[in-house]
C-alpha cells in the first residue's frame, strides 16, 4: 500500500459520503428542475444539502451556490463581483496576495489584461503571513474586492482572515476568501467577516468536481455561466445531484470531526517536522504554528525536488514538490519564492500533506527513508548551498 502524503492535492472519498452519493446515482437520478416525482425528489436532496451546508458555515440556504470546483467558485467570486461593480461604476481595483492559488492569481491577471481592472498583489513575510495592515494600506478609493486565502495550499500558513475581513467591512470593500484547504478550520462566515467564501469537495474527502461559493445576501455579483438559471441564476447547468449531496455530507463530517482530527494530525505533523529537521540543511517553509494541522513543507538544500519526489515514490511514498520540474510552467513555486528565499531553494521544496488514513507508521517511514535519499542525491550534486547568519544563502558550484 502506498504511503499517501498528498492530501492537499486530493483526498479519497469518505465511505459515508460515497454511500449517500450512490443513492443519487442509481435511484434518485432525476433533474431537480423537472416537475415530476423523480425530479422533485432530486430537488429535495439538493435543497437539503444546501440547508445543511448553510447551517455549518453560519449562512442562509440562499447564500450557498453549488459549483463544479474550487476553481470555478473562485472565478465566479472574482469575475462575478468585479464585473458587477465595474458596471455600476464603483471601481476597478482588486487586492489579493502573492501566494494565492493560480485560480485566484490567473483570474486577477485575466481581469487586468483583458478587462481593464487594476490589481495589487500584497506580499507576505518569511513565514507566508499576509499583514492585515498591508491590505488596509493597499485599499484605494476605487477598491472593489479583496481576495485572500484562508490557508495556503503549499506551505499551510493560516492567514489572519478575521482581521482582514474586518478591515474590508470597515472600509466597505467586498471580501472573498479561498478556503479550499481550510476544511479543518472554523468556517463560520460571520466570524470570518467574509462576503464570499470558496470551498471544494475533493480536499475534504468528498467527490472531485464539486465546489461551493458562499455569497452573502446583497453582494453584487454576475454569473459567469449562463443558461437555465439554476443556483439562483448564478450557475446555470443541471445540478450535479450526487456531487452536491456528497459535498454536503463531506463538509458535515469534516466539520464534525475537525477538532479531534486536527489534534491528531498536529501531533503527527510536528513529529514529521522534527524528524525531517534532523537531516542536515533542511528548512521549514511556512509558519511553525499558524499552520494547517496536516501540512509539512521543507526545502532540502543542494538537491532538486523532482529527484527527491521520484526517489520517495520508488519507496512507495507519495508527496509533492514546488520544483520547477513538477510544474507545467517550468518555474519554481511562486509561493516559496514569495517567502523571499532564492530560486535554488524553491527548487528543493518538498510537501507532505497528511490525512485521515495517515498514521504514525507513515511518518516513521518517511523519517527513515528520506535521509538516505538525501545523502545519495547530495553526493551526486555539484551544488552546495550554505545557510548563513541573518538568513542569507550562499550558493557554491
Amino acid at each position, binding site marked *: 500500500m502506498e504511503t*499517501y502524503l498528498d492530501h492537499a492535492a486530493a483526498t479519497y472519498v469518505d465511505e459515508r459520503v460515497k454511500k449517500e452519493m450512490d443513492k443519487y446515482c442509481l435511484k434518485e437520478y432525476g433533474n431537480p428542475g423537472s416537475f415530476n416525482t423523480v425530479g422533485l425528489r432530486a430537488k429535495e436532496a439538493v435543497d437539503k444539502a444546501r440547508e445543511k451546508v448553510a447551517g455549518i458555515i453560519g449562512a442562509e440556504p440562499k447564500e450557498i451556490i453549488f459549483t463544479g470546483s474550487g476553481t470555478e467558485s473562485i472565478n465566479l467570486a472574482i469575475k462575478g463581483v468585479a464585473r458587477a461593480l465595474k458596471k455600476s461604476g464603483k471601481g476597478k481595483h482588486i487586492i489579493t496576495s502573492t501566494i494565492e492559488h493560480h485560480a485566484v492569481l490567473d483570474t486577477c491577471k485575466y481581469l487586468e489584461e483583458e478587462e481593464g481592472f487594476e490589481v495589487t498583489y500584497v506580499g507576505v513575510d518569511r513565514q507566508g503571513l499576509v499583514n492585515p495592515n498591508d491590505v488596509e494600506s493597499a485599499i484605494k478609493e476605487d477598491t472593489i474586492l479583496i481576495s485572500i486565502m484562508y490557508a495556503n495550499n503549499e506551505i499551510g500558513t493560516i492567514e489572519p482572515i478575521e482581521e482582514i475581513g474586518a478591515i474590508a467591512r470597515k472600509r466597505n470593500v467586498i471580501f472573498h476568501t479561498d478556503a479550499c484547504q481550510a476544511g479543518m478550520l472554523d468556517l463560520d462566515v460571520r466570524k470570518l467577516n467574509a462576503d464570499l467564501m470558496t470551498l471544494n469537495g475533493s480536499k475534504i474527502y468528498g467527490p472531485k468536481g464539486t465546489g461551493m461559493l458562499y455569497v452573502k445576501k446583497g453582494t453584487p455579483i454576475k454569473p459567469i455561466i449562463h443558461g437555465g438559471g439554476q443556483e439562483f441564476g448564478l450557475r446555470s447547468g443541471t445540478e450535479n445531484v450526487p456531487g452536491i449531496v456528497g459535498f454536503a455530507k463531506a463538509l458535515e463530517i469534516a466539520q464534525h470531526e475537525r477538532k479531534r482530527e486536527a489534534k491528531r494530525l498536529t501531533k503527527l505533523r510536528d513529529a514529521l517536522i522534527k524528524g525531517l529537521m534532523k537531516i542536515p540543511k533542511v528548512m521549514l517553509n511556512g509558519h511553525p504554528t499558524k499552520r494547517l494541522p496536516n501540512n509539512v513543507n521543507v526545502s532540502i538544500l543542494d538537491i532538486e525536488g523532482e*529527484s527527491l519526489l*521520484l526517489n520517495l515514490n520508488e519507496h*512507495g511514498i507519495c508527496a509533492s514538490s514546488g520544483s520547477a520540474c513538477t510544474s507545467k510552467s517550468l518555474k*519554481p513555486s511562486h509561493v516559496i519564492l514569495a517567502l523571499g528565499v532564492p*530560486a535554488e531553494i524553491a527548487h528543493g521544496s518538498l510537501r507532505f500533506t497528511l490525512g485521515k488514513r495517515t498514521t504514525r507508521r507513515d511518518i516513521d517511514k518517511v523519517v527513515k527513508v528520506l535521509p538516505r535519499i538525501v545523502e545519495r542525491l547530495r553526493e551526486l550534486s555539484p551544488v552546495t548551498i550554505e545557510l548563513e547568519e541573518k538568513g542569507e544563502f550562499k550558493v557554491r558550484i
Partner: protein
Amino acid sequence: MTKSKSGRSAGDVKARGRKWFYTKTVKEHFFSPKNIFKTKAEAAKYKADGVGVVGSAACGDVMRMWIKVDREKDKIVDCKWMTFGCASAIASTSALSVILTERGGMKIDKALRIKPQDIVKRLGNLPAVKFHCSVLGDQALRAAINDYFKKTGQTGRIVPAN
C-alpha cells in the same frame, strides 16, 4: 484505495507496481547512475584533464563533468559527473557518460559532435519540456573538453560555446 480489510493480500498490491513518469532507460540511469563518484572526497582526489560546469542552480539544473584524456590517441578514456536537477537531467548526464566511455572511450572530435538528440535517443525519449535538461549534458562536455584544450595549450581547438 482498498482497505486492508478487503482481503487483498500485500502481494496483490505490490503486483500493481509503482508508476513511473519517464522511460525505463531513464529509470535505470536515475536509480543506478553510471560513472559517478561514490563520495565527494573521491571527487576531490580525481585527477581530471578537463573539467566543465554549465547551468544555474536558480534555474534548476547544474552539471559538472570531469574527463580524462589519452593525449596520444586524442581520446576521452574516462569521465565522471555530478548533476543538480530533476530525474531527466540526472539520467541524461549518466547516459552521456556511458556514450563517452563505452568501447574504450571516444575520440575528442567525435565527442564534440554529440548532440542533445543523441542523448535523448539513448534514453528512449524524454518529454518535450525536458529536452533542455539533456541539452546541458553536451554543453558540460564541451566545456570540459575546452578546459582540456586550454590546459594542454591547444587553444586553436577551443570550440566556442553556443
